[in-house]
């Protein structure tokens, strides 16, 4: 049951940067949003990022999904918050799965990368 190791369950039960994605842009900021679904699971995710000076100054996500998709999105937001847009854009699927430190079978890859796909869609 390594897939549900403590850290994954912790992020699932207490997701970081989770909450309403209706972020407001202040002076010098821009807000970008995206919505992504994983039709085969019924997962839905919305992500909003605030860009300031080429960096992701804030990020929020909300939605419903399995432990893997929710924990992955939560870990992703922690990872990219404060980073340069170019850095966030460079992140690959394998790097995302690497963050989880679990073995992800072919069926669950889509769950593990749902947040990343949503983030890519949101970034300008």
């Amino acid at each position, binding site marked *: *049951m390594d*897939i*549900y190791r403590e850290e994954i*369950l912790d992020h699932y039960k207490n997701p970081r940067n989770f909450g309403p994605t209706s972020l407001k842009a202040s002076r010098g900021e821009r807000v970008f949003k995206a919505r992504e679904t994983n*039709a*085969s*699971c*019924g*997962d*839905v995710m919305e992500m909003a990022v605030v860009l300031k000076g080429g960096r992701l100054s804030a990020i929020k996500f909300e939605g*419903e*999904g*399995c*432990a*893997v998709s929710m924990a992955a999105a939560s870990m992703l937001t922690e990872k990219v918050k404060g980073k340069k847009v170019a850095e966030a854009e460079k992140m690959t699927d394998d790097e995302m799965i690497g963050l989880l430190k679990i073995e992800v079978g072919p069926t*669950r890859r889509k*769950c593990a990368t749902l947040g990343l796909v949503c983030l890519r869609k949101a970034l300008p």
Partner: protein
Amino acid sequence: MLDVNKIKKDFPILSRKVNGKRLVYLDNAATSQKPKAVIEAEVEFYRRHNANVHRGLHSLSEAATVIYEEARKTVAGFIGGEADELVFVRNATEGLNLVAWAWAAASLKRGDEILTSVIEHHSNLIPWQRLSRAKGLKLVVAGVAENGVLDMADFANKLTRKTKLVAIGHMSNTTGAINPVAKIVKMAKRVRARVAVDAAQSVPHLKVNFKDLGVDFLAFSGHKMLGPMGIGGVLIKKERQEEMEPFLTGGGMISEVWPQRATWAAGVEKFEAGTPNVAGAVGLAAAVEYLTKLGMARVYEHEKKMVAYALKRLGEIEGLRVIGPKTTESRGGVISFVMEGVHAHDIAQVLSSEGVAVRSGHHCTMPLHKRLKLAATTRASFYIYNDKKDVDALIDGLKKVKNVFT
């Protein structure tokens, strides 16, 4: 009573381990396992009889043709049909697409209505959606009642003189509810609508009789009834066959061909273009013989017992809610459920680590899940080789799910 211990021995896969645990296979609504008799029948065809059918004069080809047509007779007879009413296709999906494009596209006119339901598997919905758009037909969708069964009042309201085809599932692959097809046929006849039945879930689990039901079309999949993948059938009434255009075109379905035109073969061959899955048909016939030996009434009774026991034991799990009928009446061996606070995929993953195979997701019934306001459910489905120990393994697994997630 089925001798489950004896039956289990006929299925080689059931003796293997999954994740170090005994395989508890409860995903039978997706596909069934195959007994030795079926695997061997298919292998035997390739080892001893392989040749193309309806084409050669040589001995092997003639023998293969006889074997193929014998299989057609066996399989059609199992479902109360005649050999010349059975078209071999890949699966129920292909069978329903065949009905849509070879019959409905040729017979229905702009403004005509097709009546289906929100419970349907996508295979009995999307062909009608596409056809309706292409031909200017209206697709009317009957609703679901509170207990997950077809809303008969809504169905009756929507069945009108404009309805030319009723496309309905015999048994839900999600709730296990069995629709009153005989009654639906009676109602449809009053408005002179034809009836196409998606019998993918019913034919493997209960006695289905094409003739007695009086339906025009009945599609099923071989792989859900112990047969090989890639073979299934659609039974079509003779009168309907005469109204039909071909489905796929090419070799084997013609009478005579000129450079600019062709005429069609008579009978079911008209709908079987290209080399058919002969080995698959032979395997399916072996599956049908296996089921016939057990007796479909006993198969149904066995699954009913499994459902009764599973419903009782699922009731022990706090926060678990069964979707669909809560009794064994008018339902088959399929139980879908949700667990508070745990996604279906996570349930299935924990169960898999315990060797228990269940389905999670929307089971190709997205409209039903949306209507019931569910993103995904977990589904356990039974067959002849499942016993109470398998249900116990499911329950133990679900208790583990609770431990992991709460």
